[in-house]
C-alpha cells in the first residue's frame, strides 16, 4: 500500500485544491500587478528585470510550487514524526529573532537570509503549531474531553502567540486563535465558544456604551436572572453563585480589564483603530505607552486618523457594481491606499472589478474552505483531521480578518490575504499548509499517529 503513492503522487491528491491554489496565486500576482502598474514603463521589461513586486511574487510562486511538489513527494509519516521537533525549532527560531532579528515596518520578527530575502519564523511557526497540535491530540493517551488536555493544547497555541506579541506582530498572534476550530471539532465544549462570543460582545458593548450605563444594564440583567432563577431553583445555590460570579467578571471587565488593556497593553494606534471601528475617537494621552514615547521624543501627539480604512473603503466602494476595469482604478493608480500590495490587496480587486469581482472572489474562497472541510471530514486519522481543521481555521481567520478590515468591519491588524498578498514568507507558509494537507489527504486510508 505504501509503495504505490511513491510512483504516482497525483493519485489520491485532491486536484481541485491544487487548481484553486494556482488560481488564487495567479489572481494574487495580477492584483499586485494592478497595484504596481506604471503606464510609463513597459511592463514586460520590468517583469523580466524582476525588480517589481509582481515579478518577485511570480518567482516566489515558482519556488513554492517546487516546495509543494517536494512535500507531495515526501512520506506522510515524516510529518507525524517531525511535528514536535519542527514545533520546538520554530519556537527557537522565534526566540532567535529577539537576538538576531531585523526590524521591518516596526516589528522585529524577521531573520535575514541570503539574497536580500528575509524570513519571518512566526509565519512558518503556524504550520509547525498545526502539526504539533495534531500530533498532541492524536496521541492515543490524550483524552480531549478532559480539561487538562484543553489546557495543554491551549498552552501550545499560546506560546507562539505570546512570542508574536513580543515581536509587535499582533495580527500574527491573533491568528493562533484560529486553532479553536480544530479544538472545537475535537471536543472542546461549545460553552467555551459561547463564552468567547459573549465576551467579545461585552467588549464591543464596553466600547459603545458608557461604563456606568453598561454596569447598570449588567446589574439589572443579573438581578432579573437572580429573581427568576431564585424562584425556580430555590435550592440551587450553585446557579446563584455562578450568576454572581459572571456578573462580577463582567463588571470588572468593563470597568478595569478593558480600559487597562486599551491604555496599558495595546499601543496607542491599536486602541485608536479599535475605537475607530465603532466610530469613536480615542484620546491617546490616556495611553501609557504613547505617553512614555511622547516624553521620550518630546513631540506633540498626532491626531489619530483612520486614513487607511477610509482610503480602503473609498477604493472598494468606488468600484461600484461592475468595477472600474482592469488597471483603471484611480485609487490604486494614485497609491492612495497604504500597504496596498500586502495587507490591503483586496482593495485593488474591489476597485477594478467591483461587486461582481469581490463576490466571485469571496465565492472562490468559500468554495476553497468548504473543500478543505470536506477533506478534513474524510480523514480516518485524528492527526490528519486536526491538521486539516487547523488549516481551515488559519485560512478562514486570515481571509475573514483581512477582508473585514479592508471593508471596515474589523480593526486594522496586519495580516495578509492568503495566496493573494505580496510576500514570500506568507506564500510559503500557505503553500506548506495546503500541500502537507494534500499529502496527508492522499494517504487518508492510513491511520497516522
Amino acid at each position, binding site marked *: 500500500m505504501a509503495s504505490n503513492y511513491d510512483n504516482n503522487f497525483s493519485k489520491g491528491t485532491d486536484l481541485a485544491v491544487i487548481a484553486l491554489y494556482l488560481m488564487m496565486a495567479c489572481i494574487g500576482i495580477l492584483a499586485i500587478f494592478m497595484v504596481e502598474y506604471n503606464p510609463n514603463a513597459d511592463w514586460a521589461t520590468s517583469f523580466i528585470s524582476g525588480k517589481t513586486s509582481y515579478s518577485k511574487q511570480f518567482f516566489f510562486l515558482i519556488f513554492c510550487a517546487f516546495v509543494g511538489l517536494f512535500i507531495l513527494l515526501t512520506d506522510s509519516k515524516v510529518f507525524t514524526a517531525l511535528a514536535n521537533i519542527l514545533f520546538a525549532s520554530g519556537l527557537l527560531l522565534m526566540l532567535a529573532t529577539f537576538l538576531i532579528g531585523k526590524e521591518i515596518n516596526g516589528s522585529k520578527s524577521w531573520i535575514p537570509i541570503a539574497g536580500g530575502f528575509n524570513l519571518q519564523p512566526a509565519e512558518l511557526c503556524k504550520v509547525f503549531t498545526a502539526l504539533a497540535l495534531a500530533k498532541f491530540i492524536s496521541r492515543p493517551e490524550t483524552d480531549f474531553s478532559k480539561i487538562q488536555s484543553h489546557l495543554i493544547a491551549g498552552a501550545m497555541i499560546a506560546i507562539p502567540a505570546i512570542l508574536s506579541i513580543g515581536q509587535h506582530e499582533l495580527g500574527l498572534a491573533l491568528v493562533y486563535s484560529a486553532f479553536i476550530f480544530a479544538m472545537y471539532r475535537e471536543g472542546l465544549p461549545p460553552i467555551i465558544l459561547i463564552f468567547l462570543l459573549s465576551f467579545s460582545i461585552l467588549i464591543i458593548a464596553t466600547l459603545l456604551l458608557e461604563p456606568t450605563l453598561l454596569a447598570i444594564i449588567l446589574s439589572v440583567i443579573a438581578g432579573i436572572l437572580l429573581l427568576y432563577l431564585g424562584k425556580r431553583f430555590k435550592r440551587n445555590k450553585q446557579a446563584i453563585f455562578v450568576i454572581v460570579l459572571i456578573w462580577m467578571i463582567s463588571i470588572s471587565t468593563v470597568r478595569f480589564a478593558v480600559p487597562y488593556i486599551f491604555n496599558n497593553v495595546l499601543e496607542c494606534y491599536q486602541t485608536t483603530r479599535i475605537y475607530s471601528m465603532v466610530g469613536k475617537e480615542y484620546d491617546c494621552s490616556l495611553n501609557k505607552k504613547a505617553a512614555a514615547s511622547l516624553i521620550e521624543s518630546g513631540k506633540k501627539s498626532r491626531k489619530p486618523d483612520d486614513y487607511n480604512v477610509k482610503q480602503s473603503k473609498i477604493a472598494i466602494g*468606488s468600484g461600484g457594481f461592475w468595477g472600474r476595469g482592469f488597471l483603471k482604478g484611480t485609487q490604486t493608480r494614485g*497609491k492612495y491606499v497604504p500597504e496596498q500590495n500586502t495587507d490591503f490587496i483586496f482593495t485593488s480587486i474591489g476597485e477594478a472589478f467591483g461587486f461582481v469581482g469581490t463576490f466571485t472572489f469571496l465565492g472562490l474562497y468559500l468554495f476553497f474552505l468548504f473543500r478543505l472541510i470536506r477533506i478534513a471530514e474524510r480523514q480516518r486519522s485524528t492527526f490528519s483531521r486536526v491538521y486539516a481543521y487547523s488549516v481551515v481555521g488559519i485560512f478562514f481567520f486570515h481571509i475573514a480578518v483581512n477582508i473585514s478590515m479592508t471593508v471596515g468591519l474589523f480593526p486594522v491588524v496586519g495580516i495578509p490575504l492568503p495566496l493573494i498578498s505580496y510576500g514570500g514568507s506568507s506564500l510559503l507558509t500557505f503553500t506548506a499548509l495546503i500541500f502537507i494537507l494534500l499529502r496527508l489527504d492522499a494517504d487518508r486510508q492510513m491511520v497516522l499517529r
Partner: protein
Amino acid sequence: MSVYNQNRGGIIQIIIGIVFFLIVGQLVSLQVISNKYKLAADNNAIFRKIIYPDRGIIYDRKKRALLENTISYDLVVIPNEAKGVDTAALCDILKIDKAEYSKRIVEAIIKNTRVKAGLFEPFLTPELYAQLNENLYRFPGFSLSERSIRNYPYNTAAHVLGYVAEVDVNFLKKHESEGYEMGDYAGMTGLEKNYETVLMGQRGVKRFLRDNKGKIQGPYEKGEFDTTAIAGKNLYTSVDVQVQQLAEKLLQNKIGSAVAINPKTGGVIAMAASPGYNPNLLTGSQRRKTIGRLLLDTARPLYNRAIKGQYPPGSTFKPLGALIALDEGLITPNYGYNCFGSYGACGDPRKCEHHNAGHAANLQLALAYSCNSYFLQVFRMAIDNPKYKSAKGGYVKWKEYMNAFGFGRKLGIDLPSENKANIPDTAQYSKDFGNPRYWNSCYMLTLGIGQDRMTATPLQLANSMAFIANGGYYYTPHFVDSIESETEEEAAQLAPFRKKQKITKIPKEYFDVIKEGMHDVTVYGTAAFIKVPGHEYCAKTGTAQNPHGKNHSLFVCFAPKDNPTIAVAVIVENAGYGSTWAGPIGGLLMEQYLNDTLTKESQLKADNLAQVDLMPQAIKNWYIRNNKSAYLTPIEYNNDELSDVWDMEMLAEGVVKIKTTDTNPPTPLPNADKTNKDSLLPNADKKKKLNP
C-alpha cells in the same frame, strides 16, 4: 470519539458562512448601495485643470479695440523643489526681506501644498519679468506662469466696459450651475458683465490623474474626457472712441455725465460719467492698489452716472411737454401765452427769464426762449384736460406719455443696473395731497418745467432726443451692434435692440414743429452761441434746481437737423446755466462725431473746457481732508505709448491727429460770465432760481 463530534464540521461551515455573509453585506453597502465612494475617489485622484480661453475683445464702430488681452506673468513656486535658492538675490529683485520670503513660502504651502505650484508674486511688471527670467536658474522651484489680463489701449470707457475680477463666494452661489470655480475671473460690471457668457468663451477642462501626494501622474484616460477651450467672441459696438475720449476729457474736473446716441440705430456713440477712472488701473497689479481707493472716494468714480444718476430734467423737458399738449389737441403750434416775466395763476408767482412782450407768442418762440410761463400753462392744460374729468385722470394720461417717451422706466440698455429714475405715480402724490379727487394741476405745477419730483437719467434724456429726432420712435439704446459669428441665442439677446420702439401715435408734423423750435434755440435762442461747424442742429438747454446746491447744467441736442445721426444729453452737476457748461460740451461732441475732427478753434475751446474746475467745494474739502493730492485719477491722454496708437489710428483713418499734447498750456476759463460774452444773445438762458 471523533464520531460524536461529526456534526461540528457542519457548525463550523455555518460559522464560516455567516462571516462571509456579513462581509458580502458590507460589500453590498459599499459597492452597490452607496455612491459616495466613487465621488470620494474622483475627488482624490482626478485633478481638473481649467484651460482658460482668451476673453472676447470689444471693438468700437471703426473696429478699434477698446480693450485687448495681454499676457501678464506671475512668479510661482513649488515649495518642495525650492531648495538651494539664492534667497538674497530673489529678495533683492522683488524688494522684499527674508521674513517676507519665508512667509510667502508658508502661504504657498498652505494654499497649494508642497508639491504644487503656488503663487509667490502675481502680475509682474515687464522689468521684473525680464530680471527674473534672466536669473531663474538661480531659483530652483520657481517658475513664471502666464495669465491673460485685460488691457485698454485708449484708457477710456471704463464705466461702459466694466471690469473683470476674481469671483467671490457670493458670485459662486449665484452662478452655481455655470461651472465657475474659486480663482476664476468674471465680468463684474459693464459690458464685461452683461456679455459675460459671450466674452468668456468656453473653458476647456483637462483631467489629470494625481497620486496621494498630489503629484500629477499624467492625463486621465488619455484625455478622453478633456474638452478644449474655445476663445470668447468679439463684440462690435457703436462706440466712437474719439467721441468717447472727448466726452471724458470735457467732463474732467466736473461731476456729470454725457451720453450720445445714434438715433438711427439706438447705438450708443459715447457714454461718459465723471469722475471716472482709467480702466487700466483695475487690471493686473494695479488693481489691488486702486480698487479700495476708488471704492472709498466720496465722488464715487465707480458710479456710472449716465445710467444711474437721477437728475431733474429742468427745461430740457419742455419739448416733451409741448408734444403731449399738441397730441392731446390742447394747443396748436400757434398757441401763445402772454408772459410778463412770471406765472401767477397758481398763487405764488413763478418767474420767467423773459418779460419782453411776445416772447411766447407761439410754440416755436416759447421753446426758443424757454418761457417758463408758457410751459407751466401747457402742463396745467394737460392735467386739467376736461377729457379725463379730473386732475388725476389728466395726470395718469400725462404719465403714460412720459413712460412712452422712456422716462420713469428702464430703457433696457445692455449694461447692468440701469436706474429707472422717477416719474411719480399718483400714489406718491396722494400721500401728500390726499384724495386725488380734490387735486388740481397747481399741486404739481413745476413738473411742467421738468422739476418737482420728476427725475431722469442722462441716458433717458439722450433717448428722448433720439425719439424727437426720429419723429416718434426710437431704438432701445445699446452698445453692442453685433457679436462675432452670432448664434441664434445671441441674436435673440440682441433682438430687442434691433426693434423699432414706436409707442406713441403722435403725428410727424408735431415733431416738425418741436424740431423747428429746438432749431430756433440754436439760432437765436438760449443756445445760439453754440455752433457745430457745417451743421444745423436742434437743442434745448436746461438749468435744473436741485436740493444739493447750485443748479445743474443740462443740455440736450441732436444733429444734423434734417437727418439726425447723433443725439446727445449732457449734465454737469452744480455748475450753473445749461448753456454755459453742458451746452458747449454737447456741441463739441456733435462736432467731433459729425466731422470726425474738431476745428482748431473748437480744439482750443475743448482744451479750455477740460481745464475748468467745477467740483463742488464739499468734495474738494474731502480730498484735502483725506490727503488726496489730485482728483481721483486724471486720465492721461498724452501718454507716450498711447499717442503712438493714436498716430497709427489717425493715419489709417486719414484724418488729422487731434493734438493731445499742447505745448502751450491752455488758459482756463476764469468764470461763467466770460463765456457768456461769447454768446450772440447776451441774456441767453439767464434764468434765476425759481421760487420753490
